[in-house]
């Protein structure tokens, strides 16, 4: 199966990583949270989003940059996030594993 140095993703990390991938260049705290809430139906706090992103950044799955401060944000800058190649590989690997594990489950359901 997997190799030893493979980065493992938690459920929360997986969801946040997918949200960042979907948002592309507009991925920052507020939009990531909204994306998860709208698509996943899961209400995450801003704190949970930032801690998860910070952890993934230390694993090399995402990278971040600070934007320009704006007035509507009280003069505070946005932190934009972007998925790295490592992050994309991790997502792909999880999707493969989940797909492989799920294959055949629907067919077998109800036959027993």
């Amino acid at each position, binding site marked *: 199966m997997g190799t030893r140095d493979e980065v493992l993703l938690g459920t929360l990390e997986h969801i946040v990583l997918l949200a960042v991938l979907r948002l592309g260049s507009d991925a920052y*705290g507020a939009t990531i949270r909204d994306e998860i809430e709208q698509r996943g139906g899961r209400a995450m706090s*801003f704190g*949970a989003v930032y801690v*998860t992103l910070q952890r993934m950044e230390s694993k090399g799955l995402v990278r971040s940059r600070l934007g320009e401060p704006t007035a509507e944000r009280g003069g*505070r*800058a946005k*932190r934009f996030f972007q998925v790295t190649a490592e992050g994309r590989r991790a997502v792909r690997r999880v999707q493969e594993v989940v797909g492989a594990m799920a294959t055949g489950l629907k067919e077998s359901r109800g036959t027993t």
Partner: protein
Amino acid sequence: MRTHTIWATRMLSCLLRDGDGTALLGDLAEERARRMTRDSRANAARWYRRELYRSLAAVLRLRSIECVRAVPWGIVVAAYVVIGLYEFAAMWLLSRTWPEVAEWTSALRLVLEFPGIIAIAYAAATFRRSAAFILGALMLCVAGLLNIVTTETISTPYIVASLVVGPLGAVLGGLLRRRPIIVASALALLVVTGSASAQEPFRAPQELDAFAFLIGKWEGAGKTRLPDGKVVEYPITWTGHYILDGTAIADDGRGPAPDGGLAVGITFRQYDGIRKTWIIEFLSIVPTSQLFRQVYQGGGSISVQGRNVIVINAPPAGTARRIRENYLVSDNDNWVYRLDESMDGGTSWNEGRTVITLRRSK
């Protein structure tokens, strides 16, 4: 902004890395501004506060989980097990070399174990630096808990030593790994000043060593032949320790009396090096208080035969009754007390009126 909200924002900024706290608060402000355009200002402010505290709770929870996961538990637990084994080894060694300190509730024992704890924590810190500090925190928690739940009588010095020696030793071991020169110099200075300020202990006369076998806790079984010829058997505990700066020995025994009550007595043993005489006095405390001067300048004698000691008590005034106590020491962990009685001034002896077999308490 309310005071508690200010504190919450400060805490969030502290818990998140540089820039993330600002970005998070910016996101909150942005969302609040958006909500104010479609809802009331008050509702937007209420949402802001609720979301701020939700974020703080989430950050605290996730940070706590990260901290617990980051702890090198394997190393910490292994180090704790090694400290436990070290304590048993130290107790075993002390029971043979310095029995009066070989007590689980002895503060001095803990102090003597201090260097070993530093060494174990140092070894743990070589694997993971934080292990020594977590070990110290764990030792502090365990010591505090044990002091609370113990049913044994423990002294204040022991409580203080248990809360300080282990945790401090572990922290010093960790610091020694990080800053070896500074910590080693500080420790050396502490040892040198401690040795310089320590007073030379008074050296008890060597003769007192004859009774050194009494030091420690003893458990045994006694048999006494009563005047009517009936033999009673009873359990007994005997405890011996040095007193008066090690110049005398006090040993007390307790057990059920032949009448079913409690018998408790204590013997004080001292050798007067100037007068070249023994002073042995027995104080019976329960059921009645009586003081017997067994050996002193005016009467009684002691003879030492190998490891065995024979005490012939000073005769009570006006009677021909004599008491001879035999302390028959077989090894460091076993000895027998045998009391002989004479009713004719010591011409003939009724040997073994009382025989108590004692074994060192584990």
